[in-house]
């Protein structure tokens, strides 16, 4: 299971999580966010998100 879960309804595609991700595994396409393999489980993306659209799975 992926470590980070994206709430698509909440995400406003602001790019903050992409900017702080040290593993560069988050990609922001035109209309969606995708998290590739290689997550370091640092939780920085959760912290930066202004709307709480990211959370830990499980």
């Amino acid at each position, binding site marked *: 299971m992926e470590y980070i879960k994206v709430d698509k309804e909440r995400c*406003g595609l602001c790019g903050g999580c992409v*900017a*702080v991700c*040290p593993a560069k595994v988050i990609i922001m*396409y035109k209309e969606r966010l995708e998290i590739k393999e290689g997550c370091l489980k640092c939780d920085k993306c959760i912290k*930066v*998100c*202004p709307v709480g659209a990211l959370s830990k799975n499980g």
Partner: protein
Amino acid sequence: MDKNYDVIIVGGGPAGLYAAYKIEKSFKVIIFEKDDVIGEPILCAEGISTNTLKLFFKDGDHPFIRNIYSKLKVKYKDLEANIDIPGRGLIIDRSKFEKYIANKVKEENNFEIKTGSFVVDAKVENDHVKVILENGEEYFGKILIIADGVESYLPNKVGINSVCNLVDMYSCYQQIIHDPNVKDEEIIFDFTPSVAPGGYLWVFPRGNNEANFGLGITSSLDCEKPYKLLNEYREKNYPNAKILREFPGCVSVNQLSRMYTDRVMVLGDSARAADPITGGGIDNALRR
């Protein structure tokens, strides 16, 4: 189709567009923008100074101005300063602003702007650069300008580390509100720590009692999320406000110490060029 260019620019925001406008017209230049329309969507409070306008757009009319304010209110806890600042700053229509520069790029410079084109990868190879689009298409250039905004995904692909520290990032939330208590002539900053921890709250008047109303907090702090803080403040201070649109946003500061490498330049938010005090990034995106 020939896919060789002198300059390839990634990102059709103020930084990418203005850089293109400044390139010698005889060059063959292409801009890739992932969104379908230049200037949309907009995640910005749209404040710029009159200086920026004078510096970059001396000639002609400025069809992108929304409102010119004349008063500044700064709040900190119980303290309040009210200052007259006629003619110092204005609120623009960011969408029209970007379209205005894009038109110059297309009509005066004859450069190509390819929208709906997401660049997934970039490489520097011997005597050229290569970018790859989401659909697999490859383009080649002598020089690559990366202006892919706050997300700054591409610099790391070419060996420039642009990962932003949480302390250098401001997590923001903005609502466009309509409220009779919004004064068209007054811009407000509230630095009260409990309102916006490590950042500030802004009310930028758009005219017709509308405002870009938002706040940004330092992302490293443990506190409520920006959208909650903003809603609390609005319910207290603008209880009857109508919300016309709302969105999250992020502003990064602490400019990269090295914004270039062989054949590549990084500009604007991608290079973390926004002003560390105000978070304003349009002026610096035009400058570098």
